[in-house]
């Protein structure tokens, strides 16, 4: 009997509530969408304002891009947090229009090639046609130097591809600069996903000897007592990050988006393929190998 009472009680309730709750739900949905739209507008306005502010950096015309002023550094790190890689590309474009190096902390003019040809041929290591590289002039002209191109890309791969209004409150980690003191150590200690990114970065930049440069940096900054220790993954004490948020908020950079924008991701004509974890695992065992050994996995 209590069973049927309960049933009886619930009948009028269910017949009345769907109509009302549907209305409520519709209202809620509309409100929710309005809020998202507003958040989106706010973020876009913020990014536009930040882009304008970052056009004025560095604060000193004699600043050294390798050793920027701490105030400029923190402005860059804070301003870029809501940026997606595509927003960052637009910032570089704007800086170039103002005849500035695309790297936000560099006061130099961007390179200007004395040609209108679409490609330039650069001679790389080695001899013969294998060493020739075709480089899009437009890409060369984004920076004052190859170093700044690397610095700028180093930031880009750390940017969240998820729009800031849909990141669900995840603030993400601090953006690191290639020239940051301790930055490599910090990455290794703090966040295993960054190692992954770093290895993709290695893959993408090996032609430019950034791997070697990073090895040198790791030795120099992290472990002077054991100079033979290379910048490698095997020695890294990777602690599982208990806070999974960090992991979720840092997706791997994709090469696609950059290509659509005229091949930003390609480094001097070479387009990196950002790999899955699989690739990283396969190379984790032979971290001391030379660049050439990485090639077949691309």
């Amino acid at each position, binding site marked *: 009997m209590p069973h049927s009472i309960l049933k009886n009680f619930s009948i009028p309730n269910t017949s009345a509530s769907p109509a009302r709750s549907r209305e409520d739900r519709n209202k809620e949905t509309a409100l929710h969408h309005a809020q998202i739209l507003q958040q989106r507008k706010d973020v876009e306005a913020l990014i*536009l304002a930040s*882009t*304008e502010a970052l056009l004025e950096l560095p604060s000193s015309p004699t600043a050294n891009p390798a050793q920027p002023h701490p105030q400029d550094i923190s402005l860059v790190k804070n301003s870029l947090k809501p940026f997606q890689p595509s927003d960052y590309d*637009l910032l570089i474009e*704007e800086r170039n*229009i*103002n005849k500035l190096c695309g790297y936000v902390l560099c006061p130099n003019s961007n390179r200007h090639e004395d040609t209108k040809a679409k490609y330039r041929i650069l001679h790389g290591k080695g001899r013969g046609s294998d060493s020739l590289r075709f480089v899009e002039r437009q890409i060369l002209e984004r920076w004052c130097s190859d170093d700044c191109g690397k610095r700028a890309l180093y930031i880009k791969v750390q940017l969240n591809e998820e729009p800031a209004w849909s990141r669900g409150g995840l603030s993400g980690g601090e953006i690191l600069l290639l020239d940051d003191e301790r930055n490599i150590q910090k990455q290794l200690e703090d966040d295993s996903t960054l190692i992954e990114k770093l290895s993709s970065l290695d893959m993408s930049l090996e032609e430019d000897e950034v791997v070697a440069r990073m090895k040198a940096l790791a030795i120099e900054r992290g472990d002077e007592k054991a100079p033979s220790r290379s910048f490698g993954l095997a020695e890294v004490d990777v602690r599982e990050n208990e806070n999974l948020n960090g992991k979720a908020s840092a997706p791997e950079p994709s090469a696609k988006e950059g290509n659509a924008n005229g091949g930003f991701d390609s480094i001097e004509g070479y387009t990196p393929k950002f790999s899955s974890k699989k690739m990283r695992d396969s190379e984790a065992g032979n971290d001391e190998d030379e660049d050439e050994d990485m090639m077949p996995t691309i």
Partner: protein
Amino acid sequence: MDNQDAERAKIAADADRELTRLWRAWRTVHQMCQDRGYEIGEEEVKISLDDFRKNYTDPSGAPDRKKMTTSFRPTDAMLAKYTAIPTKVEPDPQPQIGTIWIEFSSDASIGIKQMRAFAQHVNQHNFHTGILVTQASITPAALKIIPVVLPSIIETFQEQDLLVNITHHELVPTHELLSAEQKVELLKRYRLKESQLPRIQVGDPVAKYLGLRKGQVVKIIRRSETAGRYASYRWAI
């Protein structure tokens, strides 16, 4: 010596080609403003290439975009067209149109900074509308500034889009902006809501030419051998 002369001749020819292009764009902008209803003398619209050369070149004979600026006031008819119908709440509505400023940009590329500078000029001089004619496309970030500088209205055109006047093409029917009053009359006559009319995007080339704003209605007049002239209407969105 011969080489030098040839080089010099080539530069002069390039400058002349550039000048002709700009003259055509300049004329189209003037026709456009006249068609919108601004006050412009016929001799300004029909400026000859020679007169244009005299006024808008630097001492070397190359076109000088910095000189290519002008402004026009709306005619009374245009003011009336842009004035809403008086209501009890708003018994004396002001025309939503005013002086227009036109500038050919000498910057090769237009980014945020260049756009800001243009917007500032328009604001400072209280121009109602500013038209920036650019040599190349404008960066996406700079375009985002345009809605931010309201109440000033900023419109942009690329030089290459003004080399011919699209409304002079025989296949493009006449588009005519309805006044607020005409719009109300039309809707009343056909017992329509504006949203029931066919639409025209404000980004449509002819809509851009006329500077159509969202909510306005244009009358489109076509000629047909069988039906003579017939009109249709579009609601700008």
